[in-house]
């Protein structure tokens, strides 16, 4: 009888439940797929190699959204991780470079530190990316010749922060070139049930 109970629970729990629970939840079309360089619009590939002459074997991705797609090149150069975004036609949108806090201007470091310490009981910076946006030619001149005209600089910072009387969360904040917060959004950590339970 006991064995029968065990078998019954096992069968009900393990076979029938997934069939019931596999709900018709809509899958959001928002995904990143690795692609070959030959699948990327020529304009994007040409821009990348013109702006970063020393780049070797970038990894290319196509990112799909609800209303379209874009391309992204990721690579490491000079000890830093780069992420270069292009629109669906291969036109440059922005360039992000990962940096350490200590690599930023002293004034920006101080401004950021005071923002975090004033707004969070506990914080920890996970990742800082400096983001360069501008017209195609201006961005190329910036990376090629360090010409700063027409370039907008922002910082994208992923950090862990606990506001008073609230739970600890992971945030992504966008800051101006001077270190002033523009926007922030909460980052949802993908479900961890298979890692925890």
């Amino acid at each position, binding site marked *: 009888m006991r064995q029968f109970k065990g*078998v019954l629970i*096992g069968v009900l729990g393990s076979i029938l439940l997934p069939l019931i629970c596999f709900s018709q939840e809509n899958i959001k079309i928002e995904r990143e797929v690795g692609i070959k360089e030959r699948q990327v619009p020529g304009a994007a590939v040409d821009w990348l190699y013109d702006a970063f002459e020393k780049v070797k074997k970038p990894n290319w991705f196509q990112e799909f959204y609800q209303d379209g797609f874009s391309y992204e090149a990721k690579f490491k150069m000079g000890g830093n991780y780069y992420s270069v975004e292009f629109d669906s036609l291969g036109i440059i949108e922005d360039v992000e470079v990962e940096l350490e806090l200590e690599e930023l201007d002293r004034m920006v470091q101080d401004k950021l530190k005071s923002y975090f310490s004033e707004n969070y009981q506990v914080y920890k910076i996970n990742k800082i990316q400096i983001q360069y946006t501008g017209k195609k030619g201006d961005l190329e001149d910036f990376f090629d010749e360090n010409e700063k005209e027409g370039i907008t600089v922002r910082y994208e910072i992923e950090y862990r922060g606990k506001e008073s009387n609230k739970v600890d969360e992971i945030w992504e904040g966008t800051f101006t070139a001077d270190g002033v917060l523009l926007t922030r959004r909460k980052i949802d950590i993908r479900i961890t049930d*298979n*890692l925890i339970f």
Partner: protein
Amino acid sequence: MRRLLILGLFFMRVFCGYGQDRQTFFTGFFPEVSLTKKLENSNKLNFKVENQHVIYDNRIGDKPQFDHYRTDVMGFYDWKLTASTSAAIGLFHRFQDGADGNRIIQQYAFLNRLRDFRIGHRIRTDQTFTRGQKVEWRLRYRVASEFPLNGATLDPGESYFMISNEPIFSLKGGGFNLENRLILTLGKLYAKSQKLEYSIDYRTDGFFNNRFRTRLWPKISYYYNF
């Protein structure tokens, strides 16, 4: 997929060798279901059912079987400590012919989010109470790495590969035992809240008391979050 097949064949070869030495080996079918409810205070409730059926046991002979081995039901309350760490307590009941048991579980888990993959660490202690037997005390540490198979992040509709290993140290009536669980998984994130995993779960124990035993479980796991 081809790599998984090769690994599967490798494991089978290892087990055939053990079988010839008359060390215990059995294999079977292992489905599991995990349901997780996220509470308003960011803590979680988890309910899990695991079921093991033996289809081959070298102590019985070459005849294939379909015998119920055990069914485990468990529930956890998980407290969010920080964005990437949590602590949980759990209650567990085992249905096993002649060896029904209860267990209390304590665990601490943390997550490392790296550039292209993530690593989950889980440290558990548990105490198992089985009628007519001494209490079994265990300490276990599982490390699991999850790699997306498309792109640098895992998005809904995409597959992933996971490898985990968990040594389990146990004390029961003065006797010490060590068990190891190595699991290779191919999974798919169907939506933000649902996953289906196919795994090969390779368990070894009895290292020190000349009762070496291996168990190989092809496993299918379903995870649902709501």
